[in-house]
């Protein structure tokens, strides 16, 4: 086994080691962060994404059109 291969193997162990250590620490850090933030800043704005609108579509059509027309004239 050449010197180069040896340093390659060393590099592999060091590299995979660091990658795992780094990402494992990131797992810990995320868990910690989520715990802290969910406790002290419990906003869940993303939930809003699933709220569906029940406004009558034709009303919307009129509003949209009005906004469009307003913008193209006044902006």
């Amino acid at each position, binding site marked *: 086994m*050449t010197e*180069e*291969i040896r*340093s*390659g*193997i060393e*590099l*592999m162990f*060091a*590299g*995979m080691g*660091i*990658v*795992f*250590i*780094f*990402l*494992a*620490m*990131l*797992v810990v*850090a*995320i*868990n910690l*962060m*989520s715990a802290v*933030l*969910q406790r002290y*800043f*419990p*906003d*869940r*704005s*993303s*939930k809003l994404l699933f709220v569906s609108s029940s406004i009558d579509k034709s009303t919307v059509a009129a509003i949209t059109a009005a906004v469009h027309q307003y913008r193209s004239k006044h902006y």
Partner: protein
Amino acid sequence: MENLLSLWHSTGLYNFTGGQAFMMLVGFVLLFLAISKGFEPLLLLPIGFGAILSNIPVAEIAHEGGLLYYLYYGIKMGIFPLLIFMGVGAMTDFGPMIANPKTLLLGAAAQFGIFASLLGALALNIIPGLEFSLKDAAAIGIIGGADGPTAIYVASKLAPDLLGAIAVAAYSYMALVPLIQPPIMRALTTEDERKIEMQQLRDVSKAEKIVFPLMLLLLSVLLLPSATPLIGMFALGNLMRESGVVERLSNTAQNELINIVTIFLGLSVGSKLSAEAFLQLKTLGILALGACAFAIGTAAGVVMAKIMNRFSSTLINPLIGAAGVSAVPMAARVANKLGLESNPHNFLLMHAMGPNVAGVIGSAVAAGVLLSLVK
């Protein structure tokens, strides 16, 4: 008459070398793959075109005074890949990963492809005529990161001569992910494993999404400063996205700026596809090793998921392990598709996005290791 002769002597036909002709053919093949086969066209179209332009005889577009020569400075100085990485950061939603952080380990495991093919490159040195230095090997290994800008950044620092071949291999294999991964994924999993349904992901708050890129940057600063150019620009893009206070900068970063830089980056990469650099046994080695890197990374991700299932009660569908190589978002889609084949009600896409974006971080970390240890 003299004029006519001098004209004939200035034609491409008169001055063509075989190597240039072959490399232009390579450029046309890349264009064909990009346009007809849909292989990562955003990059492979400019790269292919750059290959053609830089191999035109007489014109010397890639030499001093030519456009591609000047554009290449953007790669040489590391500016283009970092700006693209910023744009990618502004496009990335870390929500699924934050909701299920242990999928980060899948993104770690999949980086094994990088180091295995690095070792493979060194091993190939036994073939007479092939001579990969440790730097070359590291630059080749990073193909396994399945992440274009990272590969280009590392290759431009460690082995600029191989940059063209490495970038082409990286983007081609990313386009081939839907072909490369499924057989490996099927071979390493049982039908029952592929049927595993995962519990729905929780909502992630805005605050978590804002803090995450800063935490990522801080960790990288403390542990691995050599990865901070990549991770830093990625985190900057993501922070611009999630902070919500600089929407116009975030939009520009993920649209016009990344588009402009993509054109320039593609052309500059193409300018490194010269006959002298590409028409070597090395290139075949790079292509072979790149394929291995993707395959090994995929396998490592899947196996890691199976190992994790041994130690945890909430099971992970091992298919999403394959998404750890990154190749965002194709690898996640592949995992989703295979999941649906086994269980038509099993949508794995969001679950696979976690290891998928973790893979981007993983390969940036691996890049940092290589840049700091390989000298």
